């Protein structure tokens, strides 16, 4: 089946297109390729026995994705275009979707550059602190974290966002404990417990939102919420859902005072700044979500 698919592949590029839509402009495939390249790089990483191979693959894919995001940014900011990309054969609201505009391309470029710098800056420490067979797994986690950040930037679906938030939590915890000392493991547990609290609240918020509106894709959610606000139905649940979603993500970003200890303690001493990547990424999650909610603005207006 795979062989057949691979042989059909090149023929498709020159075949007739179906009536439902033509070939998209080539740059609109960039978000999809960025996410998948990173995830595939993460999947093949365990095959590398030495850390050097893992580092080269992670660095290479990061720079490639950064270059692709830069190209996308240039193309999209030229005419302020914003497009949606069907992940599958079915349009929204039946299938998954990712959406990209100049802001998303800029965020993707930023995350890729931060990741490349973090990999470069942490290279010596990673090579010395982490034991040889586990170095490729460290680079796996970095790739998956970057993939999760990009997927969160581009996603147009709230449940996809939840799944990739969980991926980023697991990957960030693994990166924090990469040094394999008791201190980092204690720090990881504290980070994990608070992250789980945030995830639990976020998931309950998503489930209640689905219950009220019946949609999981953000544009459809926006329309349905505007409708509900206009008719005045389910006003209290909407307000509480907005609060739950905000508090869930905010807890994960260590925005509250009681989580302040994590930000100081997760950065163990004598470690390059670049290893504070998990903290930067949690900020990144909040930026991604603030941009998503501005798209779904009736949600924020109903909270007033």
């Amino acid at each position, binding site marked *: 089946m795979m062989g057949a698919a691979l042989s059909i592949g090149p023929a498709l590029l020159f075949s007739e297109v179906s009536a439902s839509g033509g070939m998209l402009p080539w740059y609109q495939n960039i978000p999809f390729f960025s996410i998948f390249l990173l995830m595939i790089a993460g*999947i093949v990483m365990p095959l590398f026995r030495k850390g050097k191979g893992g580092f080269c693959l992670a660095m290479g894919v990061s720079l490639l994705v950064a270059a692709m995001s830069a190209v996308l940014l240039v193309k999209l900011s030229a005419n302020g275009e914003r497009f949606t990309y069907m992940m599958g054969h079915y349009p929204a609201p039946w299938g998954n979707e990712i959406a990209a505009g100049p802001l998303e391309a800029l965020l993707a470029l930023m995350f890729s550059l931060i990741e490349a710098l973090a990999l470069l800056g942490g290279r010596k420490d990673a090579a010395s602190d982490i034991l040889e067979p586990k170095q490729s797994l460290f680079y796996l986690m970095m790739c998956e974290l970057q993939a999760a950040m990009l997927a969160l930037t581009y996603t147009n679906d709230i449940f996809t966002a939840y799944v990739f938030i969980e991926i980023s939590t697991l990957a960030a915890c693994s990166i924090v404990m990469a040094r394999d000392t008791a201190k980092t493991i204690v720090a990881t547990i504290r980070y994990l417990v608070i992250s789980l609290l945030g995830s639990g609240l976020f998931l309950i918020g998503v489930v209640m939102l689905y219950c009220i509106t019946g949609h999981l894709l953000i544009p459809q959610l926006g329309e349905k919420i505007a409708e509900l606000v206009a008719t005045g139905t389910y006003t209290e649940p909407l307000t509480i859902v907005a609060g739950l979603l905000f508090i869930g993500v905010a807890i994960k970003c260590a925005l509250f005072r009681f989580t302040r200890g994590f930000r100081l303690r997760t950065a163990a001493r004598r470690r390059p700044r670049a290893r504070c990547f998990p903290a930067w990424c949690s900020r990144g999650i909040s930026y991604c979500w603030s941009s998503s909610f501005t798209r779904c603005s009736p949600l924020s207006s109903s909270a007033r």
Partner: protein
Amino acid sequence: MGKKFLSKFENWLNGEEMPLRERHVRSLHRKKHVQAEPLPEDVRINRFIHLYHVSAVLVAVCLVGVLLYTVFHLPLFGSPNNPASNEVAQRYIEQGLAETGAVNAVAGMILDYRAFDTFGESNVLFLAICSVIVLLLRDQNNIVVEEDVQEKHEREIEKANEDIILKRIAFLIVPCILLFGMYVVLNGHLSPGGGFSGGSIMGGGLILFAASYGAARVKLFFNMRTFRTITTTALLCYALSKAYSFFTGANGLESHIPLGTPGAILSAGLILILDICVGFVVACTMYGFYAFISRGEL
């Protein structure tokens, strides 16, 4: 002055933070006035713990109260006019069979309509097993000599007193479990089941086999190399099939994958392949969790 600033900047770049105590002591020196005598430390700790528990219980009670209040304003349980039963659910059932070829509407939904979420979910499982490997794979950081000695002693006792009942029953049951697991995986698109549940069943069968016959027997056919190969191949196959499906779908191209006749095993397009890949990954992962937690190696 410039040199001091540069050296401070270099220290910051290399992650050498000023220790908190030093910063605190410096800020104390800056304050000219003398503070009142602080309370003894254990009294302060007890007060803090008491306050922490009380406030945490209050937060929890408030949270549950708010959630219950919301729940009573949600759509009624079991009502057919819920907002959730809309055109989305309607299409999954009415046209799911024709579009995906799967008799199981849920399998059609998670592996075809909303396949990106399932791909993320498989990655979560893969990340978890890799994290467990990073934590528990035996190396110089996490070997405790006394525990090794104790475990060796226990293995010797175990070898001396072999559990005949366990071995005989496992001999009869494990093939049935593995066969049932494979059935659940292969029939994921036809009946309740799928890659995740079938994979867990197969993983459970492997765990029972390892527990009754010992790890050495399992290592004959399932070791670190097999694990790496199977997980990487299965996930790669999943990723490439889904990438092909997403690319052709988004660009409006025909995917040329036959849907087959509904109800047959070889039907539902890519769903059968994805179920098999996911089944392998989940089985390896479940056994991996057991092996690493009990022994620290596969």
